[in-house]
């Protein structure tokens, strides 16, 4: 016990327990209602395996795109001063606070068949992004990228840039400095950012259903499958939820050192 801590008011303790119960009870409810004996059968149904496969593929692709686009953006934000810096940063962070369904609507206005860019993609190349698997990846990337950008930007700001200067005096060109010094120095945060972005992409619902729709085998990811299953089979919805819960717990444990203040 830390003796310097002031004694806690009883009301505070009571409310803290209430908060914990509020977070814990739904999990207990899910576990209690899980049809354990039917679980293998429920999770191997065609709808479930298709949704699981689609979720894994699209979320990994989204994490990939969020990384190769987000790292350069984070670098520019961390290292370059330019007019409108704050505005750019605000735009980057917007998807964090924007309701995902609104994100989906904005994607439609940009990439829909009559959207800003989408009309040309369709007219000139016959490319139709909404209601396709590519659309699922886009929606997930849209909501997931900010997590990667803010994590990596913070890391880039916190490392000692003199290591990069030392590398240049040793004959390293800017590209060599980036790949052999900067990225290795931020590797822990970069990994954390990728995992966070991937987890966010995996759980994406609102922007996906708005922009990509809910078509089994094409755009119906796990969260969408849970939502659809609720209307027909509560057991199936619970079984799929359990899968998502297991993945979330795994992510949490793998990142425990970085975000929970524990030791990695």
């Amino acid at each position, binding site marked *: 016990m830390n003796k310097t801590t002031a004694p806690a008011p009883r009301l505070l303790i009571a409310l803290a327990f209430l908060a914990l119960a509020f977070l814990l009870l739904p999990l207990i409810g899910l576990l209690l209602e899980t049809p354990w004996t039917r679980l293998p059968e429920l999770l191997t149904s065609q709808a479930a395996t298709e949704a699981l496969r689609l979720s894994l593929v699209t979320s990994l692709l989204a994490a990939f795109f969020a990384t190769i686009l987000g790292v350069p953006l984070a670098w520019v934000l961390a290292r370059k001063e330019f007019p409108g810096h704050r505005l750019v940063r605000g735009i980057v962070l917007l998807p964090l606070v924007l309701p995902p369904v609104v994100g989906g609507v904005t994607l439609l206005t940009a990439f829909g068949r009559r959207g800003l860019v989408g009309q040309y993609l369709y007219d000139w190349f016959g490319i139709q992004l909404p209601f396709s698997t590519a659309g699922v990846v886009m929606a997930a990337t849209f909501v997931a990228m900010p997590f990667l950008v803010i994590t990596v930007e913070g890391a880039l700001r916190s490392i*000692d840039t*003199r*290591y990069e*200067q*030392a*590398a*240049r*005096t*040793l*004959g*390293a*060109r800017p590209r*060599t400095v980036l790949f*052999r*010094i900067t990225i*290795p*120095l931020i*590797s822990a945060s970069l990994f954390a950012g990728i995992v966070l972005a991937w987890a966010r992409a995996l759980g994406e619902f609102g922007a996906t259903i708005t922009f990509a729709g809910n078509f089994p085998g094409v755009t119906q990811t796990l969260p969408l499958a849970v939502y659809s299953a609720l209307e027909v089979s509560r057991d199936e919805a619970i079984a799929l939820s359990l899968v998502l819960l297991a993945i979330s717990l795994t992510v949490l444990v793998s990142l425990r050192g970085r975000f929970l203040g524990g030791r990695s």
Partner: protein
Amino acid sequence: MSVNARIITRVGDFHLDAEIACEPGETVALLGPNGAGKSTVLRTISGLLPIDDGYIRIDATTVDEPATDAFIPPEHRRAGMVFQDYLLFPHMTVRQNVEFGPRNQRKDHNVAPWIDALDLGDLLNRKPAQLSGGQAQRVALARALATDPRLLLLDEPLAALDAATKAKVRGDLRHYLQAFAHGTVIVTHDPLDALVLADRIVVLENGRVTQHGPTAQVASEPRTDYLAALLGVTLIRGSVHDGVIACDGGGTLISSTSLSGSVVAVIRPQAISLHTNKPEGSARNVWQTTVAAIDAHHDQVRIGLAGPPALTAAVTPAAVAELAIAPGLQIWASLKATDIAVYAS
């Protein structure tokens, strides 16, 4: 010339305007107080900071000259730099750190000569976090030398070491620098580093060169208050006529100089003797004064004497007890004319 530069640059409110030159095989110490601009000079020579005006030439190559838009980036200057806290790449082993430079230059990766010369054989697979200060310093030096630089720049190479290690590393460093065929510029605020390592000293104060010359000369003829204090001597400015110095701060001193006009006089504190009664003897300067301050200074006690002229005497702790020296005490001081070194200013 290994390096020849007139460096003019402004960093915030700080204005630097310094000339520096270094011959091949020579070690030049850039000596000055904190904030004098010493590290800024190294950053401009290495290319990490562009200059606003002037020129920097390494060997015969102009690497920075704003007037002609010449600027060669640091990775192409071949100026090896050792940073104050070494900046060994924490994610690489000692070997990878040393090989980093040659790899960038696409040269053969044989760094064995440097590993032998700096005795790193047992450390190759360690990470920087597992090295002592002295070891890290050797790795940093090997890393810089492995790029086959045309010029070596050392920024306070001994400042991060503890006192016990410092003396040994200073000696080793002298040995390595003597073997280095090109020029070395070493930044330091420690006069001992400059005396031991440098052939020439350039004194930098507040962005300006205030004195420069061969090491022995600069050490024996300090022309600035900073350098005098650093070397533990007192500097008196004044004008001399027939050997008598009229000090700018008041008072006179009798010297043996044949100069006349404006001069600086350098007086070692050990040259001043203190007495309870008026001393008999040959000293030409004998005067009564008041003890203004007492300061323990290693194995000596420094006694500040109220002027004019205000001077500092150094005596043994035993003498302090014997003479019952205390602030405010009236005391006699004596100083031989031949112990006052006088230089034209």
